[in-house]
Structure formats: structure tokens, C-alpha cells
């Protein structure tokens, strides 16, 4: 997690104030970026004060439903001492030179921006106070601020921010690193629920999403991609397609997944998407795919069974002597676990709109990582990123799918082939399922050794995953610090790699969504062998509160213990009980323990109640959204286990066509009740888009075991 944003922010403010002349007080004007032409009332790249004393605050990150479009402006507004009613939120463009990192991924927005965004707000406030002090000829230290006004407490005099905006913009911006921040106890916005800024538009069906982009003269594009991932276009015949009225062109492009100079996608452009989509059925494409059609789920399963039984290809982590310890162990527990490839299935299909004109490419993209998309698109279009302008739309679900930018890369190339014409590229649901970047499948062979007291003294895992050149491919890795490896005296974690042609990628709580299931399910087995329930086994294994260094981040055993105790108290956990299961997982800097209660109803599992206890630090910035995120994570995680989600491959291609083949959670399968509790600890706040998801999967599997006596070691759970 780089924090370059902090270093460069000061120059943004300076730059935005340098040459401001035009006084624009229209609240509808898009928030000015930090340029030499910034209006005089722009205090910095994120803040503009309007004539009516409303304040426009730039929301810089992609909004995928995680609530960041409200959360980041809350941090600025808090330090500016605004009344929330004054705040007008505007989505910024994608431009990391101005705004710093603009990625929606890894639950990083909160930890990365908690201080920098507050500093931006505090700097704006300091400039307003300084301007008022000069106007009144008093010491700034004698002035206070509240609800968008500077106040002289002694006299009761006050000036609105709007009346000070122009003078404040001429102030020298303070050093962001030194600008004083509010005492947490005086927060009036942070920790208070703020509903979603786009909700009025959402419930009225107003255009917001990438797919809603509409431009004069816009044309529409549907795609045909090589079914077998990695295959390329050998030749295509578009005679029949071009004969269809309304079809405007056919171009072959590179989605970014095959080497430059090759193409893997044929795009049909028409005056309507419906027409383009129908016309593509008449396209004949010859694919060069012999090298990739041999890959299949059946082959992976057969190969993994052999590989997992042999010695690992490489070591991930070793401590002590696991093999020797196991021969002396009082009890040995062995189990194999596995999970499938998964799709993201965001409800808004992948899309992007682009227009190429006068050597410049303008893009409207629902992307979680627009900066990466800009680089890739520029490269494949033969442009530089300076030639690109990227507008960020609201995003109809991310889940990690839109960290990849294939739709942007394709739209850029199609637009470049049709200069002057805005073109919207849209995948249909089958394209979306078959050309995703999948959560990789994985296989684990675990062995654990307990001493006579039930303490875990040896631990082995042979992890079979996907890799290339002896390294895991995207999202196929396991951290050597998977708990409890760092606290067990004798550990041997090995890994072996298989090849795949599939594009893989990050799915919400990447790696953790699978690792939580295998590790915490296996730990439930080990705990049972030790004569304990999982929460108690975890407490003993965690030991005294302390920080343990991990691969990238530290793990605090005390914080883990805190949420375990909290959820057990909340649910009234009193040891193993039929239909009840527990799971704990630490991911994305968040500590979550969850308990699932379930029962059988008409031969099907009904989830009666889920308890969640989470520690994401000292503050839950926007509680109404936090609850929604945690509940959504829980149901999303249950979906990965319960409703049959798996991506199957045959002849190098994905078989899933639509939601009938890859079921998502529906309302009738959702738990009746989900109770969420946050344990506040004295640590800086961290993100919440992901960490509540992983523990529910093992909690569910462990609950099913306690109900039926059958241990499920494969996802999706097969209940019959």
C-alpha cells in the first residue's frame, strides 16, 4: 500500500491556486481539477465553495456499491467543520496525478485515505480561518469554525465560508503533514450514518452507470471472443454481417489478454446494440486455439489428485520439523479440501464508451482501476496516457471483476477505428460469464499433529494451485502466514503449480474467500480432535495478545481474540451445538468472527441467523453503510458455498451461459437475520468491503457438520 498521495497532495493545492482567475460560483460546474485554470473559489483539487455556501467535494474513487463516494467526502467535510446538508458530492475524473490513487480494491480506500482526506479538509479549513483572521485583524487561533462558518467566539461574529472563499483561495496552503486534525471526540460527521448520495437517482431510474452513457451520434458494439481463453483470431468472414442494415463495421481487436499484434476479439458495430448483438451471429471466425483447447475442469481435477499426493514442487513456509513431530504426535488429523473457479457476475455487464477525436481518446468507464486501464488502453491504441481522458461512472457491481480493464482496452481500439464516433461496447451475460477473470480453483492436503494436551504442534499443507514458471498466477497464491502457521512450532507449507489457459483475477476478498474455508474448516476438525470447540481452540492457539509479523501486514492476536469473544457473547455460544458453526478470518486488515445457526426445512438448509463481530479499528465511518456491507458480505459468502456456484471448463472454454448455470443468492435463501457488531479498538480505521465475507463460509460449513455429522470439504457444498 503505497502512500504517494500524501507526498504529492500539497502540490495539487498549490497548483490549483496558482493561476485561478475565473470566478465560477455555479454549483453545477464539475469540480475543477488542480489546473492553472481552476476557479478562484476552488480551495484545492477536492473542495470548491459555492456562492450559496454549499461546498462541492470531489469523490475520487470508483463507486462500486461499497459507499466510497460518501465515505471519502465525509472525511473532508468532518475536518472542514461543515454541516452535512451543505455538502454536494461530485465524482472526479480518473487522474492520479491530481487525486492520488483511485482504485477500488483490497478494501484499501479507508486505510489509504483516512489521514490524507482529513488533511485536505483541515487544510481548506485553515485557509478559511486565516482569511477570516485577516479580514477581522485578529489572531487565527482565536477563531472557531462550525457548520460552514468561521466564528469569533468572543464577539459572536461569523462569516460564512462562501463569503471567505475567494480570499481563502489566495491563502498559502498549510503543510498537509502538519495541519492540525480534529480530536476524534469532536467528530460530528464521522461515525454518523449518511445515506448513499446517488440513492435518489437510483430509485428513480436516472442514468448513472457506465451502461447508461449516452452521447450524440453514439454507436454500439457487441463482441465475439475466442471461446477458449488465449486463442486468437486466425481469420474471419464478415460479409454476411456487413450486409445487415444498420451494421457500421467489424473490427478485430486485442482484449489485452493475448500478445500485442494479435487479436482475440471481433467487434460488430451497429446503430443499436440489439442490432449489433444479433448481427454477430452471422459472423464466421476461425480461431487459432489449438494450444489452449486441451484445458478442462476434468483434467485439473485428475491432475490435482496426483500432484497433491506427491511432494510439493516448492516450499512456502517451514518452521521446526513437521514430519518428525508428526511421528511423535498424540493425535494426527488429515483432510483434503478443494474449491472451484468462480466468476464475479457483477449485475451490470462489462461495458465501456469511448470516442477518439483529433488524436485524443475520451473514455467513460465503469472501472475499479482506471489508471491501469488507461495505461493498457494507451499501449494497445498506440497513444500515451496523456492522450486519454477518463470519466468514472457509477459501477453496477465490482467484486474485483473491474480491476481488469478488457472492456476499456476493447472500447479504445474500436473508437480509434471509428474516429469522431462515440462507441459503447457492451458484453452480454454469456460474454460476461465466459470471459471473466476467475477466482482460481485450489486443492489442499492438510496434516495436523496434536500433543497429549491437545495443543497444535505440527502442521502441513500441500497446496495445489495454478502457476507459470514456478510462480502463482494472478490471485492463485497463498500467504505463508495463513493462520495458524505463524504460531505453530513445526510447520511445512508446500505448493505445486498446474498450468491453465484461463484468465484469473481477484474476487472480493481474494485468496481469503477460499483460504478461510479450507483453513477454518480444517481447524474445526483439529479442534474437535483436541476435544475443544473452534472458538476455544482458536483462543488457545492465538495465545497472549501480541503482534505477529506477516508477509505484508501485522496480525494482532488480541484483536482476533476480541472479535471471537464478542461474537460468542452475542450469539450465546456455549460449546458445540447442533446446527451452529463458527469461523474467524483476518483479511484486508479487518478481524471478523462469525457464527451461523441453521436448520433443515423441507430437506433444505435454512439459515436462521448469523452473528458477525468485526474489528476495523477505532471508527466505523458510516454506520448505515457499514451494516449493509457486512450483511452483503455474509450473504455473498454464503452464496459461494451454498447455491452451487462453480465455473466449469471444457475444451479450453467456460460452459456457463447465464445465471441458470451459475446461481447467485436469491432473497429466499438469505438468512432470516444477520446481527452485526463492531468491536472498537484503538487502531486507525480500515476497510469493510471485503473482510466480513471470508469467515461466514467456514462458519456455514462447520454448522452443517454440526447439524448433519457430515464434513464437507469441497465447495460448493453438495448437501445431498
Amino acid at each position: 500500500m503505497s502512500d504517494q498521495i500524501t507526498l504529492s497532495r500539497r502540490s495539487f493545492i498549490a497548483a490549483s491556486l496558482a493561476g485561478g482567475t475565473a470566478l465560477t460560483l455555479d454549483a453545477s460546474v464539475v469540480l475543477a481539477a488542480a489546473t492553472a485554470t481552476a476557479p478562484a473559489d476552488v480551495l484545492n483539487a477536492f473542495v470548491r465553495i459555492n456562492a450559496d455556501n454549499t461546498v462541492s467535494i470531489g469523490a475520487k474513487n470508483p463507486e462500486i456499491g461499497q459507499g466510497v463516494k460518501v465515505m471519502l467526502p465525509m472525511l473532508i467535510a468532518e475536518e472542514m467543520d461543515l454541516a452535512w446538508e451543505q455538502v454536494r458530492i461530485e465524482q472526479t475524473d480518473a487522474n492520479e496525478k491530481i487525486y492520488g490513487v483511485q482504485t477500488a480494491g483490497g478494501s484499501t480506500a479507508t486505510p489509504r485515505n483516512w489521514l490524507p482526506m482529513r488533511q485536505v479538509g483541515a487544510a481548506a479549513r485553515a485557509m478559511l480561518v486565516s482569511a477570516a483572521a485577516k479580514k477581522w485583524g485578529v489572531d487565527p487561533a482565536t477563531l472557531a469554525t462550525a457548520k460552514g462558518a468561521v466564528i469569533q467566539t468572543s464577539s459572536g461574529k461569523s462569516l460564512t465560508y462562501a463569503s471567505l472563499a475567494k480570499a481563502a483561495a489566495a491563502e498559502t496552503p498549510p503543510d498537509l503533514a502538519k495541519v492540525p486534525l480534529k480530536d476524534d471526540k469532536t467528530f460530528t460527521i464521522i461515525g454518523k450514518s449518511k445515506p448513499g448520495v446517488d440513492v435518489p437517482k437510483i430509485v428513480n431510474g436516472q442514468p448513472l452507470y457506465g451502461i447508461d452513457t449516452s452521447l450524440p451520434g453514439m454507436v454500439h458494439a457487441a463482441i465475439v471472443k475466442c471461446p477458449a481463453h488465449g486463442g486468437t483470431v486466425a481469420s474471419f468472414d464478415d460479409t454476411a454481417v456487413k450486409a445487415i442494415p444498420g451494421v457500421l463495421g467489424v473490427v478485430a481487436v486485442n482484449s489485452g489478454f493475448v500478445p500485442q499484434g494479435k487479436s482475440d476479439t471481433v467487434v460488430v458495430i451497429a446503430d443499436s446494440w440489439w442490432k449489433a448483438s444479433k448481427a454477430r451471429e452471422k459472423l464466421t471466425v476461425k480461431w487459432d486455439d489449438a494450444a489452449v483447447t486441451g484445458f478442462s475442469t476434468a483434467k485439473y481435477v485428475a491432475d490435482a489428485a496426483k500432484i497433491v499426493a506427491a511432494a510439493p514442487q516448492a516450499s512456502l513456509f517451514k518452521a521446526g520439523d513437521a514430519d518428525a513431530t508428526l511421528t511423535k504426535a498424540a493425535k494426527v488429523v488429515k483432510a483434503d479440501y478443494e474449491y472451484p473457479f468462480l466468476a464475479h457476475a457483477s449485475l451490470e455487464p462489462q461495458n465501456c464508451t469511448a470516442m477518439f477525436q483529433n488524436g485524443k481518446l475520451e473514455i467513460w468507464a465503469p472501472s475499479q482501476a482506471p489508471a491501469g486501464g488507461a495505461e493498457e488502453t494507451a499501449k494497445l491504441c498506440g497513444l500515451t496516457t496523456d492522450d486519454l481522458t477518463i470519466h468514472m461512472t457509477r459501477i453496477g457491481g465490482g467484486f474485483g471483476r473491474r480491476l481488469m480493464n478488457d472492456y476499456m482496452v476493447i472500447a479504445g481500439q474500436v473508437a480509434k477505428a471509428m474516429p469522431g464516433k462515440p462507441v459503447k461496447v457492451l458484453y452480454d451475460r454469456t460474454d460476461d460469464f465466459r470471459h471473466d477473470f476467475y477466482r482460481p480453483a485450489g486443492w489442499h492436503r492438510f496434516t495436523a499433529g496434536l500433543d497429549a494436551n491437545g495443543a497444535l504442534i505440527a502442521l502441513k499443507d500441500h497446496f495445489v494451485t495454478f502457476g507459470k514458471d514456478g510462480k502463482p498466477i494472478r490471485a492463485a497464491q497463498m500467504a505463508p502466514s495463513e493462520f495458524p502457521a505463524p504460531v505453530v512450532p513445526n510447520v511445512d507449507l508446500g505448493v505445486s503449480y498446474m498450468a491453465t489457459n484461463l484468465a484469473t483475477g481477484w474476487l472480493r476478498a481474494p485468496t481469503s474467500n477460499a483460504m478461510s474455508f479450507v483453513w477454518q474448516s480444517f481447524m474445526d476438525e483439529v479442534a474437535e480432535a483436541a476435544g475443544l470447540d473452534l472458538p476455544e481452540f482458536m483462543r488457545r492457539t492465538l495465545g497472549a495478545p501480541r503482534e505477529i509479523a506477516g508477509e505484508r501486514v501485522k496480525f494482532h492476536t488480541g484483536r482476533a481474540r476480541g472479535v471471537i469473544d464478542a461474537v460468542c457473547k452475542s450469539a450465546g455460544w456455549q460449546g458445540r451445538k447442533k446446527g451452529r458453526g463458527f469461523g474467524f478470518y483476518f483479511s484486508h486488515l479487518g478481524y471478523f468472527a462469525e457464527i451461523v445457526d441453521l436448520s433443515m426445512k423441507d430437506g433444505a438448509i435454512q439459515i436462521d441467523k448469523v452473528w458477525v463481530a468485526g474489528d476495523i479499528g477505532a471508527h466505523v465511518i458510516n454506520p448505515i453503510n457499514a451494516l449493509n456491507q457486512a450483511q452483503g458480505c455474509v450473504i455473498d459468502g454464503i452464496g459461494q458455498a451454498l447455491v452451487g456456484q462453480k465455473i466449469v471448463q471444457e475444451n479450453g472454454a467456460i460452459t456457463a451461459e447465464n445465471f441458470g448455470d451459475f446461481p447467485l443468492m436469491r432473497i429466499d435463501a438469505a438468512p432470516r437475520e444477520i446481527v452485526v457488531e463492531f468491536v472498537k479498538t484503538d487502531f486507525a480505521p480500515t476497510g469493510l468491503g471485503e473482510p466480513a465475507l471470508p469467515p461466514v463460509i467456514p462458519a456455514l460449513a462447520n454448522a452443517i457438520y454440526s447439524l448433519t455429522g457430515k464434513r464437507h470439504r469441497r465447495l460448493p457444498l453438495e448437501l445431498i
Partner: protein
Amino acid sequence: MSISLTVNGRKRVVEAEADKPLLWVLREDLAMPGTKFGCGAGLCGACTVHLDGDAVRSCQTPIADAAGKSITTIEGVGLNELGKRVQDAWAALDVPQCGYCQAGQIMSATALLKQNPKPTPEDIDGWMSGNICRCATYMRIRAAIRTAAGLPAEEAAA
């Protein structure tokens, strides 16, 4: 072919292929993108509209079948008192996460309450199970429907 229909109380005439789904006529020909494309197969409910008062999947409704009919979309559902109540409940409870499915959810919920003004929890789940929310805002969807129905947002303990 030329097709006349009423959309949110307004007479519209569109030129479209007979098999073009109502969804795409709304989005492309009538510039009403509130109705969402999710699956194109009637499986997700994102494209739900009312056709002569009944909830239908507009991705599965050829425009020829909508000729002469009255269509209500998310853009117009608030013109009706019940639809407005549902929208208001959705906003009051801050239901959406990404929000993409919510137009379809609101259209389905409004159709539910029209024919079943005081639905039980089972009624709600049964009726709404055709609408996918990928963000899984189901707890709030249930509560919003109950709120719009004038029932306590939290269901009574069993």
C-alpha cells in the same frame, strides 16, 4: 415496424424490429435507461417493468407484444402513490449498494404490494426471488417492502 404504446402515461410511437425486446426499445429508442439489462434471459429481474399493471421481464417481451399496451417503468412508477411509497421506503432505508438491480426490485415490490398489500415474510421472499441483488441487500429489501406496506420493518420473531 411502427409500434404505438403508452409509456408512463405518455403515448409513444417507435420504429423497431418486431422481435426487439421492450428492454432495448426503452433503453435505445426511447432514451429511458432506468430499466436495466442484466441477463437477457428473464433470470435476474433487473429489467422488470409493468405491462398493463403486471410485472414482466422487458428483456423477454418482444416489442410487438407491447403494442397498444400501457407500460410503467422505474422512471414513472413514482407517479403512482404506491410506487412512490416503495421508492421512498427504498431511500429511507438506504437499500442500495451498487444499486444496479434496484429499479427491477422496486418494480417487482410495487407489483407485489398492489396485489398483496400486507405480505408475510414468506410472501415477500417468494415474490421477490426472481430478482437478483448481486450485492445481496436482501435484508433491507425485505425491510423496505414491509415499511412500504406499513408493517414493522423488522419481522416479528418466529
